[in-house]
């Protein structure tokens, strides 16, 4: 068994090896990162239902770290996305999770012709994963959890708009299967009034039927939350997002691959100890894009979750 010192050391290692991951492309509307902070294992018999809505906007081209002024034919891109995630504690140390997402729209607004827009809509993909607590000490409020899962598309067909193929950047789904690895570590103090945790996620996509393979993605987050008053928690997240370049017919696709660091402050409010509502805002603090790509400008998300005991 790990003692607290070795646990702290494990935290340090995870923080040191935290990577990144982003979802941008040439004229991308980007892809959503979840807003949930319930990323550890659930107690046995606990069902967690979590839904979130995210609006995200990309509005300037970048080349490397440099912002390009007056470049490109796209004015800005944005998406509205909703997701539903459920988790269930099978045992004290094992949780099974499933989630699915839907793009209400994933839109490119053009400079020319003025006002012209292309819009993708539809299901993104679903995931099913299993998490296992590698270390869990409720007395010391410490947990390290690992997990793995599969990601599957709801459709492998590309979307069209007025019989014109939508650009890959605003296709709602990768159209491919993939795998996911999670690593989560948390430590809390003062009866969970203060909490530090890190969430690391690696995503790998297989090639889709159009011989396009989205690059792998690595997302590493460090959160700190602090109870302000009864039922109200303030939290901050630094999220490091990296995306490997995409492959088209096994060759590197132009203007893909990026590294973005996002700061995400949020507030969480608990209603009657059953419902939790959180509101967060993402703002990039570092952006590096391979080639020329639309950069993340801002993102807001609203998260709503409920836990019930169905033992």
């Amino acid at each position, binding site marked *: 068994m790990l003692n607290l010192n070795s646990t702290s050391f494990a935290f340090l290692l995870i923080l040191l090896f935290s990577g990144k991951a982003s979802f941008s492309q*040439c004229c991308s509307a980007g892809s959503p990162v979840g807003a949930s902070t319930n990323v550890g294992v659930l107690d046995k018999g606990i069902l967690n239902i979590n839904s979130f809505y995210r609006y995200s906007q990309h509005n300037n*081209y970048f080349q490397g770290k440099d912002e390009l002024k007056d470049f490109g034919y796209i004015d800005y891109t944005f998406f509205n996305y909703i997701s539903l995630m459920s988790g269930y504690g099978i045992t004290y140390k094992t949780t099974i999770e499933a989630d699915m997402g839907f793009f209400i729209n994933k839109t490119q607004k053009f400079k020319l012709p003025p006002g012209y827009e292309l819009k993708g809509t539809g299901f993104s993909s679903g995931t099913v994963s299993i998490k296992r607590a590698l270390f869990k000490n409720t007395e010391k409020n410490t947990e390290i959890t690992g997990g793995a899962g599969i990601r599957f598309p709801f459709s492998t067909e590309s979307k069209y708009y007025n019989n014109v193929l939508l650009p890959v950047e605003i296709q709602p789904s990768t159209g491919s299967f993939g795998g996911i690895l999670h690593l989560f570590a948390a430590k809390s103090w003062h009866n969970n009034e203060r909490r530090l945790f890190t969430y690391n996620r690696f995503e790998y996509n297989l090639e889709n039927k159009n011989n*396009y393979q989205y690059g792998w993605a690595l997302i590493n987050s460090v959160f700190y939350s602090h109870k302000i008053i009864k039922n109200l928690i303030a939290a901050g997240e630094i999220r490091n997002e990296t995306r490997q370049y995409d492959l088209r017919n096994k060759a590197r696709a*132009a203007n893909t691959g990026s590294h973005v660091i996002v700061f995400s402050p949020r507030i969480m409010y608990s209603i009657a100890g059953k419902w939790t509502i959180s509101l967060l805002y993402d703002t990039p603090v570092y952006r590096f894009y391979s080639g020329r790509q639309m950069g993340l400008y801002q993102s807001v998300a609203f998260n709503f979750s409920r836990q019930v005991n169905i033992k």
Partner: protein
Amino acid sequence: MKYILLVLAVLLVFVSCKKKEAEVNDEPFEFISLTASDTFPSINEYTTLTATTKGSDLTYTWNYHAGVVVGSGAVVQFVLCHSERVDVTCDVSNSSGQVLSKTIQIDVKP
């Protein structure tokens, strides 16, 4: 009288449910050409693609692997924000389900 009405009703059902024969489009259907106003456009420069066809009730479907096709129908515009050679394919179908395709290569200059 009752039986006559019943037979008429059955006949009416059969007549009304008679399967429509598939529409056959006898008009000539031809995909004459697919052209671009400029096959070597610069980055972020629009080039106009025109599908010239013969026939009626035609549907134009556009496919490509990079950049974007703006508009729909027989005349569209293509643009790309980086230098790359892109094949743009136009599939034209008529009401009989016949499909004709042509591809044009657009080489976007750096």
